[in-house]
């Protein structure tokens, strides 16, 4: 298969074009003026203007939304990984009645994203007095991210050789001591994978914040992008700049940890 087939490269090139075209359109379009975009919607910047980007980078709204998104994503990720690894440890290394049922409970959650539960969830959050607060988004997000986290982590923890556990037991290490001193350090790759997935999902989350956050001050970036796009619908260039700035963190995160994400998904499929 070492033969170089030009057809393969042509398809691959076409693919990259289609996949990246719209992304580049957003980024490059942010360097144009509205009149440039009106005259030639698909053209290149002539001249390049940085005004759209600098204006947004100087706006308080943008940074507040970045802050909100960061808080929500970081807290969600930390909590999901912590709760997830604890529950996964039980599922992977304890034998008890109800273990299968517990696994099935979480696995069933994987099949139903937040869409189905969003209306009653909103009412629950409202009754808890958490509407328009970040915890009102964080708590449900933790719950909905748990299934994927547990599905990824259980095989990881099961793969830790039982000899290590036996050795720890001989050394009078308790199960909890084994968890702290051996399991956590050994499962760091799995924790990173599930953490990144939880982070990106949280960063991109739309439906839940849409229901819970109605106050501009608590908007996360996806809500901010949409509010900005409808508020400045005539100012296409600025919308493009805002949009491209808001996708940077997810892209950076992804490119840093791409191998781990792909590896984690593979593990989940093999589950």
């Amino acid at each position, binding site marked *: 298969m070492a033969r*170089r087939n030009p057809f*393969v490269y042509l*398809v*691959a090139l076409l*693919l*990259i074009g*289609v*996949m990246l075209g*719209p*992304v580049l*359109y*957003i980024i490059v*379009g942010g360097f144009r003026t509205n009149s440039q975009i009106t005259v*030639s919607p*698909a053209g290149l910047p002539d001249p390049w203007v940085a005004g759209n980007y600098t204006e947004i980078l100087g706006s308080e709204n943008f940074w507040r939304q970045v802050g909100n998104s960061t808080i929500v994503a970081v807290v969600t990720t930390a909590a999901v990984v912590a*709760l*997830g690894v*604890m*529950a996964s440890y*039980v*599922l992977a290394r304890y*034998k*008890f009645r109800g273990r299968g049922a517990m696994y099935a*409970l*979480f696995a069933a959650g994987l099949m*139903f994203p937040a869409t*189905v*539960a*969003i*209306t*009653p*969830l909103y*009412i*629950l959050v*409202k009754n808890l007095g958490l509407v328009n607060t970040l915890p009102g988004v964080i*708590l449900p997000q*933790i719950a*909905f991210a*748990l299934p994927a986290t547990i599905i990824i982590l259980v095989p990881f923890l*099961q793969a830790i050789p039982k000899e290590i556990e*036996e050795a720890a*037991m001989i050394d009078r290490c308790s199960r909890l001591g084994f*968890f702290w001193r051996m399991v956590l350090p050994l499962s760091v790759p799995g924790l990173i994978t599930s953490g990144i997935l939880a982070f*990106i999902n949280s*960063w*991109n989350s*739309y*439906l839940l914040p849409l*229901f819970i956050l109605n106050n501009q001050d608590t908007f996360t970036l*996806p*809500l901010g*992008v949409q509010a900005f796009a409808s508020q400045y619908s005539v100012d296409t260039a600025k919308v*493009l700049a805002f*949009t491209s700035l808001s*996708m940077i963190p997810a892209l950076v995160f*992804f490119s840093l940890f*791409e191998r781990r994400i*792909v590896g984690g998904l593979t593990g989940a499929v*093999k*589950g």
Partner: protein
Amino acid sequence: MQAPPPLRPRRRGIGWAQRLEIVALSGPAILVFVSFVIFPVLMAAYYGFYRWKGYGVPTNFVGLDNYKTILQDTAFHEALWHNAEILVLSLVLQGPVAIGLALLLNRRMRGQSVIRVLIFVPYVISEVITGTAWALILQTNGAANDILRSIGLGGLAEDWLANPKLAIWTLMFILTWKYVGFAVILFLAGMQNIPAELAEAAAVDGASFWQIQRHITLPLLGPTIRIWAFLSIIGSLQLFDLVYIIWGQYVASTAGTSTMATYMVVEGRNAANYGYGNAVAVVLFVISMVIALIYQRFVLRRDTEGALTGGQ
């Protein structure tokens, strides 16, 4: 799970200390999960029997009226039909495209790792950004029509988003763009679990590249394809973000892209009919669950003691 190590003699069953550990370790996760996932779904079933504006305790019990209204509402029928279209088209469009791309990318080639990263980029970008960008590109005086005109195909320029004959296909195109990378990555991962010796042996026996793919790669990729199809089906049934972002709350139904989930949000939350919205949620849940169970029973069952779980 392995047998317990015989090093320390253990009583039958588990001791209270272990019980405590199990509760302490898994308790928080179960508590959060049950409170914010299971409980709301159960509450939806309760609220669905009421006409209720979302304030205080629901008192106006209407029995099955909400469900009758849903099942008689042509807007819901249309949404259900769109979900069915999206479900089928996602499978028949994304599946073959993704398998083809995975086959291409599975060959050793220069820049392979770069392509794998790039094909995943749309999946990482949020739905809001995807929706906003494509809505700008595809509007009548947007970049897509501009490109068509500049290469002399101006006759093909269309109102991609509002034309009810086209809109569902535009949506399918955007969905494919967004989610095909995920399928390709899954398939590539599945292909890497297929022993190379099989293809080599077949090649020695004179099988062509396509014969090898058809008779070795595809059958062995079966479990991965079935898992992907399951995820795709669930995603199609619950599709909300992209439709709501691009078509909004009013245009989706006239453009022919409304889904059960957008119907639920528009008729429930936006109209402040929370009882009704919850009833729609229940219908959506039941439909998803029935399809999921049927699929698991008849399609995924054969994988349960096969490659799916045997991988570890």
